[in-house]
């Protein structure tokens, strides 16, 4: 990645984020979100955040890998269970990393 693209990305992201965060603080008072749009926006975080991590677990070098030999998928499932039960960022990440290395070692020993 080039330094220029990092800088352009950074400045553009900063502007987009600032405009979205300030949006209704800057708009005139008589403008409101239509009810349907307001309801639709509720689902954006769950949908988009899931869409960002799902391929990291399920797509391996350009192909879908839903097998038990996919350490990232297994570690992701562990992290999802921990996040669901404990709701703590720290424990989720530690459990996921430990599971990744645990499953990775187990799968490597199976394949020898």
């Amino acid at each position: 990645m080039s330094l220029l693209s990092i800088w352009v990305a950074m400045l553009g992201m900063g502007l987009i984020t600032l405009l979205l965060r300030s949006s209704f603080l800057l708009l005139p008072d008589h403008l409101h979100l239509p009810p349907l749009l307001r309801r639709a926006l509720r689902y954006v975080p769950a949908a988009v955040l899931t869409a960002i991590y799902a391929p990291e677990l399920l797509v391996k070098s350009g192909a879908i890998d839903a097998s038990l030999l996919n350490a990232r998928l297994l570690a992701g499932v562990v992290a999802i269970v921990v996040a669901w039960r404990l709701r703590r960022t720290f424990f989720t990440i530690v459990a996921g990393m430990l599971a990744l290395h645990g499953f990775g070692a187990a799968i490597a020993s199976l394949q020898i």
Partner: protein
Amino acid sequence: MTTHQRIEFGAGLRASLPVLLGIFPFGVVTGVAMAAGGIPPLEAILMSVIVFAGASQLAATQLLGAAAPLGVIFVTVFFINLRFVMYSASMRTHLAGLPLRWRLGLGYLLADNAYALCITRYTQHPEATDKHWYCLGVSLPVWLTWQAATILGVIAGASVPRDWQLEFAAPLAFIALSVPLLRDRAMVAAALAAGTTVVLAHPLPLRIGLVLAAVAGISAGLLAERRTP
């Protein structure tokens, strides 16, 4: 600052303390992932200051690493941060009549945790005055903690061996962020539809899958909501 403004500001500072414990590890992970993902230390730290949005910083790191076009990065960041439109719409009545520098400043600082604290307090005490000082009191410690944590993460991340696979901390952070949102059937439907769509759409160019997934997730959520009595 008047005495009352100082009281509101102090109340905000105190309310922020428990939240900082959750922000710190997420900030460290974001810093580690940016460094492990190949963003140079100075740029990674500046990105935290300029963008100040963990999920966007993580997603941009992955996309820059995959040499995605800038337009794809911007569309992704737009969708990730669309929730802030909802936040600002609900904050507006409580922050009416402020000068532009306050509205832009509080807009820049409007992070998830800070928003949750502010809107809870505003709903409980709608008649209060100087509400913006409470919001500033909540937001400043959140901002400082985030910056300190990412700097620490960037420094730590640059010195960690590659075979630790610390870049996997990025998807794990997204799991930690999104799974607690799945509190009702409609949210679960939105997440499942989005996840399935993005995986099936992975061969499509320019990560169009993310936009399709957002549309599929929102539709699934609205449909599931309508069916719930």
